[in-house]
């Protein structure tokens, strides 16, 4: 009963957003339909398609190369390819314009090296939808890389050998055998990327692209029409829900799991020097664009800034970010664990639907979801806690709740795929040996799910450090996180001052990623 009750509470903000669909429809709909909706839909569709294709190829190809071949830098790339996950898309967007605008640092540098006139710009304009596609793809591809890599590691070698014997080339094996097999896993990673792209406001707003999300905010903040904005957000949610169902059914049809415990470890193919160079380059480019480039620009900015950045406030702010990340990481992962455990023994029950709903909540623009959260918290405050004071809203506890709601999808996807690897015969054996109910969870499932649980915790942590909209609106008085500090400066485009907290976000984001990559390395030794 407990997981069910928790899910109902956590889903409430999403229900509040969706309930707008049953409310009145204002005249603004006519205006939106006549003038802007088509633009919003087509640019959003273009953005999502571009990002999906790009992350799919970057994620799977780099994962394929590092799992199958031995080349110069391989062991470095294995873990460093997930580093871009520590860069929030909006920060990459700011550094991109800082570098590639006609008078950005990159253009200035090239001009000064080659002594060119100020009317020459080498790099293309990034403030457009193509720039946005690059920004989202190169910060979010690690979601696809992570799942693809572990899927490739689980692929049996004998299958690939047979394919080679039957005349497939190396590349043929990748496209015609390995890729189709890991497709369901890769698509799961892509769903996370799509949802995060849809919910983002900072990057698209900075590039001034009119997407569905910016449209939602224009309607709310410019036309003062929150109701219509929520209806727009609900439509977005319904479309994502549809995708979700399609993905589930494609996953069910394509169950390729290998239960063969005798599968042979992979022997990596040592690449000759020329091919080794190409492999290096293919892995280096995403790392360069998604991590090295923005970090270099941020450090450059930080040095330009006059104010010293390590002071009491900065330490307090970092402490806030770190402790919130750790607590919400553990709590969210644990929640996903008990919910998935419950689903396992009541398949098809309503709790499974709720869990999926909470997952797609990841696609709701953060500020809109935050409005739903405020309404939920105030309701709880007034009816269950203290009707004369506001307790939950603006408390750390409320903030933690918000993070759980926002990041559940990340934890759930990791725990869910972990559970898929535990066969039901193991459950039966443990029952025979006297472990039932929660005892089974603690003694059998948890040890088996250790890696998934940690991955879930770490993914949530890196997301919480970056989270902005809900933090802004739900935080206690005088409480700042690093993302808030960055935003306060970046909103004014005072990038020099924004650089230090932004670097700190990246550094703290690196902690969970360091552990993730350690797990990757150890899984490699086992695999």
């Amino acid at each position, binding site marked *: 009963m407990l997981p069910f009750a928790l899910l109902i509470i956590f889903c409430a903000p999403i229900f509040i957003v969706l309930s707008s669909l049953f409310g009145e429809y204002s005249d*603004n709909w006519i205006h939106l339909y006549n003038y802007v909706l088509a633009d919003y839909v087509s640019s959003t569709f273009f953005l999502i398609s571009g990002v999906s294709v790009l992350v799919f190829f970057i994620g799977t190809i780099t994962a394929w190369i590092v799992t199958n071949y031995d080349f110069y830098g391989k062991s470095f790339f294995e873990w460093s390819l997930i580093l871009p996950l520590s860069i929030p898309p909006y920060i990459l967007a700011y550094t991109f314009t800082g570098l590639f605008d006609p008078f950005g640092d990159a253009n200035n540098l090239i001009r000064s090296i080659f002594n060119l006139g100020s009317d020459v710009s080498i790099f293309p304009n990034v*403030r457009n939808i193509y720039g946005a596609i690059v920004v989202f793809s190169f910060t979010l591809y690690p979601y696809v890389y992570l799942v693809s890599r572990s899927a490739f590691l689980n692929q049996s070698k004998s299958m690939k050998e047979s394919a080679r014997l039957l005349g497939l080339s190396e590349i043929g094996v990748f496209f015609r055998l390995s890729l189709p097999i890991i497709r369901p896993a890769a698509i799961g990673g892509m769903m996370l990327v799509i949802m995060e792209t849809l919910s983002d406001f900072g990057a698209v707003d900075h590039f*001034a692209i009119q997407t569905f999300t910016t449209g939602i905010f*224009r309607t709310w903040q410019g036309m003062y029409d929150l109701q219509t904005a929520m209806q727009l957000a609900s439509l977005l949610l319904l479309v994502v829900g549809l995708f979700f169902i399609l993905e589930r059914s494609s996953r069910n049809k394509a169950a390729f799991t290998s239960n063969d415990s005798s599968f042979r470890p992979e022997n990596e193919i040592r690449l000759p020097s020329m091919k080794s160079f190409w492999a290096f380059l293919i892995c280096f480019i995403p790392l360069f664009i998604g991590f090295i480039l923005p970090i270099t620009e941020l450090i450059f900015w930080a040095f330009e800034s006059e104010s010293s950045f390590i002071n009491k406030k900065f330490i307090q702010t970092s402490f806030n970010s770190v402790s919130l990340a750790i*607590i919400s990481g553990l709590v969210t992962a644990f929640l996903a664990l008990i919910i998935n455990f419950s689903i396992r023994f009541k398949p098809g029950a309503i709790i499974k639907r709720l869990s999926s709903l909470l997952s797609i909540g990841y696609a709701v623009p953060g500020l809109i979801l935050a409005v739903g959260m405020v309404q939920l918290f105030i309701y709880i405050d007034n009816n269950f806690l203290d009707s004369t004071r506001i307790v939950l809203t603006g408390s750390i506890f409320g903030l933690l709740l918000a993070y759980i709601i926002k990041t559940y999808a990340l934890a759930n996807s990791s725990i869910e795929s972990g559970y898929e690897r535990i066969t039901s015969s193991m459950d039966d054996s443990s029952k025979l040996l006297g472990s039932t109910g929660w005892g089974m969870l603690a003694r059998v499932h948890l040890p088996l799910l250790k890696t998934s649980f940690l991955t879930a915790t770490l993914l949530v942590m890196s997301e919480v450090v970056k989270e902005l909209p809900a933090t802004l*609106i739900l935080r206690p008085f005088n409480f700042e996180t690093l993302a808030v500090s960055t935003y306060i400066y970046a909103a004014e485009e005072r990038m020099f001052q924004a650089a230090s907290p932004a670097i700190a976000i990246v550094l703290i984001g690196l902690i969970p990623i360091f552990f993730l990559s350690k797990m990757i390395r150890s899984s490699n030794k086992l695999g």
Partner: protein
Amino acid sequence: MAFMKKILYLLLISFLSEIIFADNVNVYTSRHYDSDDALYEEFTKETGIKVNIISGKGSALLERIKSEGINSPADIFFTVDAGNLWKVQKEGLFQSINSKKVLSSVPAELRGPNDEWTAVAKRARVIFYNPMKIRPSEIQDLTYEDLANEEWRNRIVIRSSSNMYNQSLVASLIANLGEEDTEIWAKGFVKNFARKPQGNDRSQIIAVSNGEADMAIANSYYIGIMLSGSAGKEQEEAAKRVKIHFPNQNDRGVHINISGAGILKSSPNPVNANLFLEFLLSKKVQKHMVDRSYEYPIVEGVLPSSEISSFGLNFKEDNTAVSQFGELNPKAIRLMDRSGWK
């Protein structure tokens, strides 16, 4: 374990902070200026009243205040656009300000219709131009209305219509010219854009300085920030290459927007809130504020920062009541959509 204890302690504080500090003023603000923090500290030093801050987007803060209802801890709503103040006023969430100090130092068109809120600082939305590209005879007497003329084809940069300052500017045109004429104007104006709207106000100024466009429309204070050098050498150099023109000097004057604040009806500390507003409008604080934010002061006898003063002080301001901007804002945004202003 010490770490967990610290976290538990923090949790406890977050629940109890309101009780521990009895003398408070709670400010919900969408002004994110570093310099404001120093002001709040100064207020605490002078009065012993602690200033508690939540900053965020204006519209999101409004939703939080609305949801919190009579239990809201908010005393003051402080924001940077007249539209935001109007929204709160329209919801009936403000109480009337009755401090004589405030009412006597702020002109009526810079307050709410029933003194629900007051301006704290002003900014003008002006034309920045490249003197190498535009002759003095061309720029002299130029109005916002003139910017729709064909001679400016592909010469103007301005940011996106999602920006509230542009929405307020168009709202002020609707208030003065009527919706129909403003729409004709906007369609011509959009044709004159040198590039698709992008970036913030500052990148428009930089575009003019670099020769990407001949003129830009942006808020006055950005040039002060750039000239001060706090945003780096390059922006300082860029700012030196542009000039300011105040449009519509022969008729209604340049478009003015405000930073403003009001006291909420549910305010638990109304006395402190009043003191806080009076503090913001005292001469000393006004000077301190505009020296750092590069806005124009509200109170007479206070000069803007030297960077801003250098562009001239004797310009005519549009006296259109700023409360109209909020009211006309939804109309303005729909009009911009129809005109193809991205």
